[in-house]
């Protein structure tokens, strides 16, 4: 059990290519995040969750689906930790697990209007599904 927790944390670090230990806990990521209010686990917390090997909680949290990949935290992180990449890695883990998709094709027609650009659907599919 402990071993698998460790493995998951290492996987997140591998997939994201980040080193969470570089974090100095300044919170600039959370200060910059436009989706902060909607997040149950805040951007800066993602870093400590990985350090504490609690990736399971990350894979279940709502923040995965409100992160916009706008890279504000990635751009402004003073320590090259770049929490946005960790969020994405956790999301990858979630969607790779069976049934982890946040978006299913059936619900799409109701969400679409005629001006909606293809780009939106393509991006959403990439982000929300395996």
């Amino acid at each position, binding site marked *: 059990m402990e071993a698998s927790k460790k493995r998951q944390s290492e996987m997140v670090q591998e*997939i994201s290519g980040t080193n969470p230990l570089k974090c100095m806990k300044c919170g600039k990521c959370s200060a910059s995040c436009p989706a902060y209010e909607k997040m149950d686990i805040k951007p800066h917390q993602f870093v400590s969750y990985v350090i504490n090997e609690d990736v399971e909680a990350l894979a279940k949290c709502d923040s995965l689906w*409100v992160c*916009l*990949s706008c890279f504000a935290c990635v751009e402004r992180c003073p320590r090259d930790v770049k929490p946005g990449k960790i969020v994405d890695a956790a999301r990858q883990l979630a969607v790779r697990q069976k049934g982890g998709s*946040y978006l299913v094709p059936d619900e799409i027609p109701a969400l679409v209007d005629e001006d909606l*650009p*293809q780009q939106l659907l393509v*991006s959403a599919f*990439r982000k929300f599904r395996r």
Partner: protein
Amino acid sequence: MKYSYYPGCTLRTKAKKLDDYARASAKALGFELEELEDWQCCGGVYPLSSDEIGSKLSSVRALNEAKVKGQELVTLCSACHHVIKRVNDDMKNVEDIRTRANNYLKLDEPYLGETEVLHFLEVLRDKVGFDEIKKKVVNPLTGRKIGAYYGCLLLRPSDIIAFDNPENPTIIEDFIRALGAEPVVYPYRNECCGGYISLKDNDLSKKMCNTVMDSAKGFEAEMLVTACPLCQYNLTKNTAGGVPVIYFTEILAEALGVKEEVDA
């Protein structure tokens, strides 16, 4: 001068105008956009996970086609530019991705990131020159107050996209000035519009779009220009009482006097 050109899926359909105005303007400015023969969708978002290869391959194919033709590759849509430029960086600098992508694609000659990826705006700034554009303007947009909306994808991450100062960009402002209009600088021009989130969490996107729009209006912008179809959509749909948001190529075409022939 001829460039390879990657339009992307949205420019074929909902954002056809972005594409049409760009081609007409290019012609007026004396360069040609030669569309790649067999391009596929870039995927819309760059796969951040370092172990994902499959979703990067369509970009590599496009990049390789430009390399074979010996041309620089021009993009127009912010998202396509972001994805292709970053995949190219991976192919140039990340050995693992380079090896795996090449193993998969089995090209005649491995692709090692040789192609130069340029956004249409970079062509205008660095190849044509804003001074040159100024000389070719026939309908100067004098007196118009236009705000640039960069969004996030065009600027970040700045170490790879290397487009402009990510927190205080000036390229579109300089562009607007070259067309004779007055650029409106407002602080949220590089903040996100909500992107794909507007599909499932429209409230959040609305909030973000309104922040941008209110700020732009506060600084007296009469119109916003952008390079991204998704930004254009979100800023238009998710705000009430906002100023018009159009593609930057439209004001370029207008200033160069080719807008009408496109619209016709």
